[in-house]
């Protein structure tokens, strides 16, 4: 069994919308995978199944051999400590500075201050934001804010980094820089990356494995470098 397995998953929301239908993927440890598709094709729904924000209506989701669909709601935090999550809208706490934002997951776990500091500094160094530790989110550019999020997501050294359109709010230049950071994490730490996007330039340039969703159905699974985006995404 691979690190991540999605098996025969259906996601039908309460309002009757079918976001995913009979979905199957399997992702190896250390892989870098793009999930692409139009808006409302079901990318975020797939991501939510992975970090167990939603349960599939039918089917199984395995992360590291564990069936996360069986995970009780109040145990979900254990999974979240093993995976990092990055969003389009950053989700930073505006009243905390950069250092405190990155330290936040460790603080809430009750880790000692003296242990927190080196970890936070290391994470911030990895995303190239060490000089701005005292700034607050509203004093940072979009790209810088996203770096803070990546540092926070990586603070527990997760095996998997889930990114839901991390460059969706950023200009092409900044997007490139963010992709460089994510690529580095994949190469240097061996972290498995799963990234939803509809930025065809990024997908074309990076030449990674590409999974295509159309209307909630798996429409293609291209090995590293085999995918060539056309105009439609």
């Amino acid at each position, binding site marked *: 069994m691979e690190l991540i397995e999605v098996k025969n998953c259906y996601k039908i929301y309460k309002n009757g919308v079918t976001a995913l239908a009979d979905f199957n993927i399997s992702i190896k440890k250390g892989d870098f995978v793009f999930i692409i598709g139009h808006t409302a094709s079901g990318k975020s729904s797939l991501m939510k199944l992975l970090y167990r924000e939603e349960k599939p209506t039918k089917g199984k989701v395995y992360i590291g051999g564990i069936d996360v669909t069986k995970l009780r*709601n109040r145990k979900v935090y254990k999974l*979240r400590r093993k995976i990092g999550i990055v969003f389009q809208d950053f*989700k930073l706490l505006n009243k905390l500075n950069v250092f405190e934002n990155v330290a936040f997951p460790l603080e809430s*776990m*009750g880790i000692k201050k003296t242990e927190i500091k080196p970890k936070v500094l290391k994470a911030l160094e990895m995303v190239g934001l060490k000089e701005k530790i005292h700034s607050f989110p509203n004093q940072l550019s979009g790209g810088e804010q996203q770096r803070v999020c990546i540092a926070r997501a990586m603070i527990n050294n997760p095996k998997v980094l889930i990114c839901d359109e991390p460059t969706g709010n950023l200009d092409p230049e900044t997007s490139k820089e963010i992709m460089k950071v994510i690529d580095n994490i994949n190469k240097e730490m061996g972290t498995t990356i799963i990234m939803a996007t509809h930025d065809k330039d990024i997908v074309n340039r990076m030449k990674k494995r590409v999974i295509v969703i159309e209307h909630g159905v798996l429409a293609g699974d291209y090995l590293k470098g085999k995918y060539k985006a056309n105009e439609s995404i």
Partner: protein
Amino acid sequence: MKVFRILVRNIKSAFKSVIRNFSLSFASIICTTITLILVSIAIIITANVNNFTKDLENDLTIMVFLDRNASIDDANIIRNELEEIKNVDSISFESKEDVKNEMKNESEIFNTIMDSWTEENNPLQHEFSLKVKDATIIRKTANQIKKIEKVDSVKYGEDIIDQMVNIFSVVQKATIGIVIALILVTAFLISNTIKLTIFSRKNEIEIMRLVGTSNVVIRLPFLFEGFILGIIGAIIPIVITIYGYMIIYEKTGGYLFSSMIKMIKPFNFVFQVSILLLIIGAVVGMISSYRSVRKYLKV
């Protein structure tokens, strides 16, 4: 150590939140204060009524009158039988002679009339007066005594006593009902306050959940916040309880309604009530906040 660090961090954040959402916290503290004052009044009334009813019950006496032809020996046998009855606490006996002498001492007229009475033609009766252990079954005990041979009649002021005991038990039940209703109102108010502070921190909770904070830890600051609100809300009621009760006690001399109801002494009573208010405030605060976070936690 880990638990301790988490606690300290969350107590700090709870205090910050109370101050940051000051107007909201203030509103719920005021509500808690008003409710706890009413709760305090209800508790004081209940406790005093309870105390008074107990006093009354302790004073209940059963009078047992023997047949006119009963001798002192008969009386001794009856005494033994009375001692067998479980609910009988203490027994005291007055013979015809004792009663006669007592009455003679009371007035000159009795004195001259009764002088002529001898042991044989004394129309008075030997009598026992009994204290009971449990006043609620006094009627049963009285009936039991009536069946004993050579017992003429049994009296315990049944009508008045029964009525009094009934009225006070109704008053007591009503006050307990009011106390419970008021506590529920407080819980509702605090829970609404916490819901609003939670709403203003919805983002924070979402982020906490995403980065792997356990539900227990997410709840902590709100639990502390409810606790703090409850405790602060109890301060004024406690002050009012202590001074208010002491002043009333002093002004009335410890008796209400022309010395019919004896009040409970202020010490330690006021402190017991204060501690109760503090506990009610804290517990109600914590429970209501615990319940209001639920919705955002997916538990």
